[in-house]
């Protein structure tokens, strides 16, 4: 071989050939370098990715823990249903993609083949529901209502149904013991979303794709303890999901059980009475609007006064929690959440807020005492109170002469509170205070826990609102542009209000403070906040954080974690004043605004206390409030657009107490009929196998109570009784009295 080419070729070609050679070898060198980088330097990283690539998980869901009432009666548990599922992995391996098998299966189940096939297709952007949203490696449930006969047909001829299983599976159920519903308190479950999986990835309780997650109520608050831990089997799979080997598996751990302080019987009574009261209110004629009351929503809270534990919590309108079981249909979901629905998912006991009306006077009284006005002093209860051209009338224009604060609470005299609030407003410097105003009335509201959540163990509690100077400033800043644009000095009512607000909406005006003192205007409270306040008055001044969860019991029953009542603070009220208030609230029931509904009540044996309230809402009918307490319980009831507190709720609240204490209509007490004469102490008994013993509830506690109330002298009594009590149906206040101040507050009101 000649080393020196005898080509006689010009150097140009030779040089270029060398250039090509160098170029070619450097290209291959680049490949080698890149190969080294990927395989040697980053190799470990890619090995990890590769192992994640070909491993898929199959999940055995954990059985969710039960939610029990205080005696162990299940409010939410699981039932075994025969679930027929299809394995996509097996179906796709079949020649026709499983079409024949699914068609045959549809025949057995009595479904249409298209329906079955739609259920097993995977969801993507282009596929409309029904479709499978979960992992394609997970068996896809086709029905959870298979009959034993259908299941047998499938299992006995399993060779005819490759990829189809019929297994008993635990499905969430809300058994509604004693016809109680408890829907909003229990909440509901729905499948976990991608976002949540991402978010919880690195926490101590990551979600699995198959998980159901508590969306609301106790199911959400206690989701972590109820959920348990799903079992996972990891398979090696190829790119089409065909299993090529089994890797490892972990067994499922069932979730813990939650014992609550709810008593399902009392819950039933509360729900029944709320519903009945609302229906009754709709039969009542409202003079102001010239129609019957709408009574469109309402709530009841029954709370242990000395611990803050919730015994019953009802919200209306309501719904059947079992609509969520096995996946809610689009139609049902629309009915629950759509614009035309009455939003039954809202728990109005913690998410409904309204002006408190006269139930607020407990705060005004405390504020007045704090400001230096003796509780037993004498204050003029005139028929009206005038400020400049504005006249603030007393309810029904009554005149009681000079009375104590206690008596003012009893008869719900507005003018006493107008007078005190106005005096303090002036002392603080009027609309343009110099220095720091004392604002006793607003400070007290904050000290009573208004304007912030109570911390109840339910999600999405609303805070209510204290319309103090800071709020007014912030609110004015947010809205002044709109007000100043639409406001007209000589325009319509709304335009005039806007004009006024544009000018001085940021200032605490005299009328604002006067209205505020009796719970009208921009103040908003929730029923649960009222329960905490009146519970504190009942127990001597301690405000508790309301709780529903009482204990978490592990599935084997061996470990019990009790949820202790939590104190949130003290009422800013001295014991002497508290005693005075206590007496006054007793007087409300015996000779005050609620007396006409509590005639014949065994007050000597079971002393009841209470305060009525009737809050105005611009453009709507009045909100009724009835805040009551006995030695052990606080019962708060509110119904929107239903008239006065006593008129709309008096009978219902009385019936709830009757059920608790076993009081008959004639005032006699039947201890055997009493549902809960004392708050439930201790926890339900846990058997050695971890199950929890529960008494059976027979019949309908609400109907039993109703029957026992036959002889009640006040039942169905809509006539105006003698004395100081107002008429139940004509409870609207004189609209002239607070001219120009309701519009702002009510336009935003939600309750």
């Amino acid at each position: 071989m000649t080393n020196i080419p005898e080509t006689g070729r010009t150097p140009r070609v030779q040089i270029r050939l060398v250039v090509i050679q160098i170029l070619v070898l450097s290209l291959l060198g680049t490949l080698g370098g890149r190969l080294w980088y990927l395989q040697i330097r980053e190799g470990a990283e890619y090995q990890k990715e590769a192992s994640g690539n070909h491993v898929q998980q199959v999940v055995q869901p954990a059985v969710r823990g039960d939610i029990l009432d205080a005696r162990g009666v299940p409010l939410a548990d699981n039932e075994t249903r025969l679930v027929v599922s299809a394995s996509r992995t097996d179906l796709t391996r079949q020649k026709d993609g499983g079409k024949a098998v699914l068609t045959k299966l549809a025949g057995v189940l009595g479904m249409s083949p298209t329906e079955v096939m739609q259920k097993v297709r995977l969801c993507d952007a282009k596929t409309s529901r029904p479709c499978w949203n979960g992992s394609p490696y997970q068996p896809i449930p086709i029905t959870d209502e298979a009959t034993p006969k259908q299941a047998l047909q499938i299992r006995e001829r399993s060779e005819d149904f490759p990829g189809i299983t019929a297994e008993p599976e635990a499905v969430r159920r809300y058994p509604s013991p004693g016809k109680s519903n408890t829907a909003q308190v229990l909440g509901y479950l729905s499948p976990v979303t991608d976002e949540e999986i991402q978010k919880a990835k690195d926490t101590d309780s990551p979600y699995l794709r198959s998980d159901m997650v508590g969306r609301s109520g106790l199911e959400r608050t206690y989701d972590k303890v109820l959920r348990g831990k799903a079992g996972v089997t990891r398979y090696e799979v190829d790119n089409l999901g065909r299993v090529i080997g089994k890797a490892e598996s972990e067994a499922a751990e069932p979730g813990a059980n939650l014992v609550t302080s709810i008593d399902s019987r009392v819950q039933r009574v509360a729900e029944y009475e709320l519903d009945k009261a609302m229906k009754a209110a709709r039969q009542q004629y409202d003079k102001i609007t010239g129609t019957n009351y709408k009574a469109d929503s309402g709530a009841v809270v029954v709370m242990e006064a000395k611990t803050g534990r919730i015994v019953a919590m009802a919200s209306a309108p309501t719904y059947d929690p079992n609509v969520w079981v096995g996946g809610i249909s689009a139609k049902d979901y629309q009915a629950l959440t759509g614009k035309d629905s009455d939003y039954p998912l809202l728990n109005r006991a913690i998410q409904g807020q309204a002006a408190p009306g006269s139930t607020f006077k407990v705060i005004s009284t405390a504020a007045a005492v704090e400001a230096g006005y003796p509780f037993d002093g004498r204050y003029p209860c005139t028929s009206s109170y005038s400020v400049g051209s504005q006249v603030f009338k007393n309810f029904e224009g009554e005149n009681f002469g000079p009375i104590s604060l206690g008596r003012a609470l009893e008869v719900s005299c507005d003018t006493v509170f107008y007078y005190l609030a106005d005096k303090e407003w002036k002392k603080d410097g009027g609309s343009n205070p110099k220095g720091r105003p004392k604002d006793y009335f607003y400070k007290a509201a904050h000290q009573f826990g208004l304007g912030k959540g109570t911390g109840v163990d339910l999600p999405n509690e609303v805070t209510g609102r204290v319309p103090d100077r800071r709020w007014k400033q912030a609110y004015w800043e947010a809205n002044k542009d709109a007000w100043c644009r639409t406001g007209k000095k000589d325009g319509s009512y709304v335009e005039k209000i806007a004009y006024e607000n544009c000018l001085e909406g940021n200032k605490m005006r005299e009328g604002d403070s006067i209205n505020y003192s009796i719970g009208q205007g921009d103040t908003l409270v929730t029923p649960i906040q009222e329960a905490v306040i009146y519970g504190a008055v009942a127990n001597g001044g301690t405000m508790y954080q309301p709780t529903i969860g009482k204990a978490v019991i592990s599935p084997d029953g061996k470990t019990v974690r009790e949820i202790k009542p939590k104190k949130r603070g003290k009422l800013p009220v001295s014991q002497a004043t508290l005693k005075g208030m206590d007496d006054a609230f007793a007087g409300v029931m015996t000779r005050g605004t609620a007396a006409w509904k509590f005639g014949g009540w065994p007050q000597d044996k079971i002393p009841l206390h209470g305060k009525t309230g009737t809050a105005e809402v611009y453009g709507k009918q009045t909100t009724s409030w009835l805040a009551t307490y006995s030695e052990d319980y606080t019962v708060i009831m509110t119904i929107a657009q239903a008239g006065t507190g006593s008129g709309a709720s008096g009978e219902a609240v009385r019936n709830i107490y009757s059920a608790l204490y076993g009081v008959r209509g004639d005032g006699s007490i039947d201890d055997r009929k009493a549902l809960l004469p004392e708050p439930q102490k201790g926890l339900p008994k846990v058997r050695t196998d971890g199950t929890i013993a529960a008494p059976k509830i027979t019949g309908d506690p609400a109907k039993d109570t109703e029957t026992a109330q036959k002889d009640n002298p006040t039942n169905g009594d809509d006539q105006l009784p003698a004395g100081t009590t107002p008429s139940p149906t004509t409870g609207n206040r004189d609209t002239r009295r607070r001219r120009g101040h309701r519009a702002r507050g009510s336009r935003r009101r939600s309750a």
Partner: protein
Amino acid sequence: MTGTNSFSVSRYGPERPGWTRLFARDSLTRRLDWPILLAATALSLLGSLLVYSATRNRTELNQGDPYFFLLRHLMNLGIGIALMIATVWLGHRALRNAVPVLYGLSVLLALVVLTPLGATINGQRNWLVIGGFSLQPAEFLKISIILGMAMLLAARVDAGDKPFPDHRTVFQSLCLAAVPIMILLLMPDLGSVLAMVAIILGVLLASGSSNRWVFGLLAAGVIGCVAIWQLHILDEYQINRFAAFANPDLDPSGVGYNTNQARIAIGSGGLTGAGLFHGSQTTGQFVPEQQTDFVFTVAGEELGFVGAGLIIFLLGLLLWRACRIARDSTELYGTIVAAGIVAWFAFQSFENIGMTLGIMPVTGLPLPFVSYGGSSMFAVWVAIGLLQSIKVQRPMSA
């Protein structure tokens, strides 16, 4: 300058037994470039193992026979080697006279692809299916273009008329190349077009054509790319698809998926790989087109840096020897043909391996010798035959 054919050297010598003749000092076998032959054979056999590993589980492709692709690959290799022997036997110079016919035939074949007789596979209409066999005429076009351009460019230089091809000749040769490129663009087979451009550049460089042509061609290519990009001739998804090699997120379900899975497969191989038939990416069929365009990922995953590096080394050895042949050829025709083959193999290897490593965009070009595919196998072995022919016939024109 004996003027005799190298085949005839022994003809005039004393008669010897057949086998001794085969290994005689001046025999054809002695003068063959054995490193190239060995490298090509090793690559093809390695390829058959990789193709087998990639396809033995792909029941939807191999019609239930795990050896389907292995056997066909070996059969292609056999045919390829036969074609090589035929090429050496004929000699590249003899083929020089047949170039117009070969060129015409391959262009005609490529045109047939555009008619309803052509088949569309993976979005590209570049297949010709005849009686169960599928052909990719683009592979044969590459050889035709090399031979055709070499014939034109070398004609007057080898005749001693000129030291370099003149502008007119260069222009003619470019026109000759333009026809098949237009056909490829219509298919559209972008990968083959790029390979053609690389071949043309290699051919022009080796022919000694004026620098102006070389740089002019490069500039035209750059301007063309910029124009396509700026004038929005391509849709955004097409550009994304092209750019997905650098950022797989641009086309995560399409090409981005391929590059991602390919990179995972290769990266997870490490130094020595998972062992033949033990790669989880390969067994799990996560890399699409793994027996053809992405065959290198099998080597990367199952044989690791050692095995994949061996492939690159063998390609390097082959190309290095081919460059030697180009340099040593005594006539420009041989030099141009060898350089064209070098440019072809080099570009196609770099592009194919580069795309699996994520440094080149994804185009459908096979890895010479290794990828499964008859047309490619035949073409590269014919090219080997041409190289051998250039080598063994060298002294003749010296």
